[in-house]
């Protein structure tokens, strides 16, 4: 199968408008006869569910949590980008498009990214109308902050809980449709297979996680908004339940998986504290607006810090190495995430790490507290404020801006970040790769769509901060409602899809067989023990830096681990009851297959770009060295069962931006 991205003709800034003018529509009476299944109720899923139901489609929405409001979009902290130019700092749709393409290291599709930038402003309008309480200035208008990789202020925010507020907005819109009967919500349900009838996605097999019942659900289209797969690393900033299962089942049924090796390692997370660790916690990128990142310039100071003989405040200013400001003077602490993460790793690998494991750098607010304190004293006409007063005023400003993040840091580490610099280290955060989709967001299976983090389309090899929320809501509120009509217009005479078709029998039987296997297997090792081992392989060999030898080893190790898993895994409890261990077993089984594909993809891509850093390919200064001649393509993998997956290439054509060495110096 050749990949057809279905990008509309015409100039870049007219494509989406022309597309909307000519896309096929489904009239209101016919929408009432069409059912749409949506997996996941994060920003993409909830916004799609609400909007499609408003339009008149019958929606069935599924989430594994006890309420759709708990989807992991809720944990996004810093903000959402939009090209509003409210700050009058020269922002525009084109600049947002350009920053996103460049930030993604030229591995995203121009047309999709431009569409994203075009609808970004509508998202903010929609959310405000829903009652999302964004941060405001004293004049009552919306406030903005800066994020990494850009030189304008276009990020809208609600303290450190922007994702929560946006998700609760989408959840409220969905609730209105649940009340009206247009959305049927299935909480504590997990999709365990996709059902394909006559070449089209026509339903799912789902498990009721409370009763253990296996259910059949049919629809005219299936939308996967099931999020990313960062938990393949075991330790990540994802929620414990975040998983790849829905997307992976679709992959095994024919949906190509694109750029799986593009994972984002976020630079500002709380470092690992021990083997018991179950997850990692992000400290918002917004903290890099005001915080300064440093390590000691002298090796002996770093050693003293690691042994606890010195504290951060004992290191004088001249002995500190603000390495981001040193290496990247024009962007400083606000370089993109991949660059900031690698720079932290470089310093720590060189022996300048500041905690007992040697894997941490400082994020320091002392200068910001002074700066804000002086500004506040000036604003309040306190011209003779002493140092203590200025510090007090500064801390109050920092508390207002970042209070919840500082509290969280204090809870987890026991340190007070108002008094001493925070310690941070990169951690797995987001996955740019995902199911391959065309311009309509349809996968390579007819009628099966992927939205939000579950697809690959907009962020290339590195996502910019505050763009995930933008993409999730763009896909759900403003893209899929149009593009799905193009497909469903052919389904107006189909009528309800029966769940008696043999394709449902077959899929259900396979699901039941697998559950029975887990329940009957006489293994001795817990699911988590395998997940942790997989995570370690992935982090060490397919993490922040990769090389050919390591990736080849990883593939073999994962294959061996997978074999051991099927022999040795132990799942307690029963199948027909609430059994989280059983659910986890299925998810880890899928991660064990995905992990290998990620390594294969990383091995295939003989270049460094964005979050994918192959040690063999770097500039003399240690920056990522792209190979546009050979690798300016999307790597879309086809699943072939026992045989090795087959690579399909979608060439990326850049007509509106010039490919350059990405520089933030």
């Amino acid at each position, binding site marked *: 199968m050749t990949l057809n991205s279905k990008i509309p003709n015409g100039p870049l800034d007219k494509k989406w408008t022309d597309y909307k003018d000519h896309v096929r529509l489904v009239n209101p009476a016919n929408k009432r006869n069409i059912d749409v299944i949506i997996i996941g109720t994060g920003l993409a899923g909830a916004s799609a569910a609400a*909007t499609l139901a*408003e339009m008149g489609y019958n929606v069935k929405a599924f989430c594994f*949590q*006890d*309420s759709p409001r*708990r989807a*992991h979009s*809720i*944990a996004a902290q810093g903000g959402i980008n939009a090209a*509003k130019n*409210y700050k009058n700092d020269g922002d525009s749709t084109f600049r947002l498009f350009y920053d996103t393409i460049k930030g993604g290291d030229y591995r995203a599709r121009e047309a999709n990214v431009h569409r994203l930038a075009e609808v970004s402003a*509508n998202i903010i*309008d*929609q959310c*405000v*109308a*829903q*009652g999302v*309480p964004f941060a*405001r*200035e*004293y004049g*009552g*208008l*919306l406030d903005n902050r800066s994020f990494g990789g850009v030189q304008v202020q276009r990020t809208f925010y*609600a303290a450190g809980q922007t994702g*929560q*507020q946006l998700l609760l907005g989408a959840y409220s*819109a969905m*609730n*209105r449709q*649940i*009340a009206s009967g247009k959305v049927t*919500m299935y*909480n504590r349900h997990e999709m365990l297979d996709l059902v394909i009838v006559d070449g089209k996605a026509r339903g799912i097999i789902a498990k009721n996680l*409370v009763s253990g019942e296996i259910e059949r659900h049919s629809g005219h289209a299936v939308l996967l908004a099931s999020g990313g797969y960062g938990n393949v690393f075991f330790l990540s900033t994802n*929620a*414990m339940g975040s998983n790849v299962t829905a997307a992976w089942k679709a992959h095994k049924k024919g949906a190509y998986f694109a750029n799986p090796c593009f994972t984002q390692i976020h630079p500002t997370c709380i470092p690992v504290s*021990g083997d*018991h660790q*179950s*997850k990692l*916690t992000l400290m918002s990128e917004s903290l890099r607006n005001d915080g300064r990142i440093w390590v000691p310039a002298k090796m002996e100071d770093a050693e003293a810090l690691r042994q606890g003989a010195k504290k951060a405040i004992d290191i004088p200013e001249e002995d500190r190495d603000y390495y981001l400001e040193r290496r990247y003077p024009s962007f400083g602490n606000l370089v993109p995430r991949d660059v900031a993460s690698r720079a932290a790793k470089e310093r720590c690998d060189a022996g300048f790490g500041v905690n007992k494991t040697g894997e941490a750098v400082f994020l320091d607010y002392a200068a910001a507290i002074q700066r804000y304190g002086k500004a506040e004293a000036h604003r309040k006409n306190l011209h003779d404020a002493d140092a203590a007063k200025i510090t007090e005023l500064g801390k109050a400003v920092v508390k207002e801006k970042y209070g919840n993040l500082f*509290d*969280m840091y204090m*809870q*987890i580490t*026991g340190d007070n970040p108002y008094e001493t610099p925070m310690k941070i280290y990169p951690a797995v955060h987001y996955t740019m790769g995902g199911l391959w989709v065309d311009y309509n967001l349809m996968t390579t299976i007819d009628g099966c769509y992927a939205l939000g983090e579950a697809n690959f389309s907009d962020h290339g090899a590195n996502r910019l901060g505050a763009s995930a929320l933008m993409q999730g809501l763009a896909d759900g*509120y*403003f893209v899929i*409602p149009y593009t799905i009509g193009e497909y469903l217009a052919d389904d107006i005479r189909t009528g309800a899809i029966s769940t008696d078709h043999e394709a449902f029998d077959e899929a259900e039987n396979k699901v039941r067989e697998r559950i029975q296997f887990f329940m009957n297997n006489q293994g001795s090792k*817990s699911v*988590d*023990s395998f997940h942790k081992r997989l995570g370690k392989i992935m982090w060490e060999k397919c993490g922040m830096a990769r090389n050919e030898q390591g990736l080849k080893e990883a593939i073999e190790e994962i294959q061996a681990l997978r074999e051991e898993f099927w022999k040795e895994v132990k799942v*307690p*409890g029963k199948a027909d*009851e*609430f059994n*989280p*261990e059983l659910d986890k077993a299925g998810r880890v089984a899928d991660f064990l297959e995905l992990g290998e594909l990620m390594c294969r993809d990383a091995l295939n891509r003989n270049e460094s770009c964005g979050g994918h850093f192959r040690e063999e390919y770097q500039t003399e200064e240690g920056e990522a060295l792209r190979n546009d001649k050979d690798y300016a393509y999307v790597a879309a993998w086809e699943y072939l069962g026992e045989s090795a997956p087959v690579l399909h290439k979608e060439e990326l054509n850049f007509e509106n931006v010039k490919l350059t060495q990405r520089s933030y110096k």
Partner: protein
Amino acid sequence: MNLTLKVWRQSNANAEGNFETYDAKDISDDMSFLEMLDVVNEQLIEKGIEPVAFDHDCREGICGMCSLFINGRAHGPLHGVTTCQLHMRSFKDGDEIVIEPWRANAFPIIKDLVVDRSAFDRIQHAGGYISVNTGAAQDANAIPVPKQNADEAFEAATCIGCGACVAACKNSSAMLFVGAKVSQYALLPQGQPEREKRVLAMVNEMDAEGFGACTNTGACSAECPKEIPLSVISRLNREYIRASLLSKD
């Protein structure tokens, strides 16, 4: 440190439950409370005992999925902290820790420490929204909102829907939860057109779900991990009375 856990075990909604005692050995200060339970569960699995079921997801204090009544307090001993953010440095060697599920008629137990909080969702279905279709919004800056109102609305909107307020209340009242949502919209211009209808519908559903009455004791706010202020309840009362007088329905 070594601890003794007394954990509520109940195989399903209809079964009878009881406390079981488990040892938690070699627990470090840096562990979160849920990581301590992970360790205990791994040991139970090894021994062939079914692990303790508990709800959790984000483990960073924002999704609202974790619960647990720890030593008689919702989300444990600290103020303004969810169970997943509670760390073992809050306990000391030799402590006995009693762990129970949320107890409320409106939150039936599913298994062990897991309860069904869908009543909260149904209250939101009744009116926890502003009726605006996608695409129908005007420019986001068209209506200025005074910063103070926006901040206050935000404070109310930070509720994570965990149910600690109900668990902490002697009457299992949901007034803090409902008050938070009603306050958020009542404070914003966008919330005005449906202001009366919303509060009446949400309170009606709250009562129908079997949540108890409010006596203004304040345990809900004191135990709320997001420190939602008690003032949302006074606003809810005002809004309810106002709507009762003004409603044209």
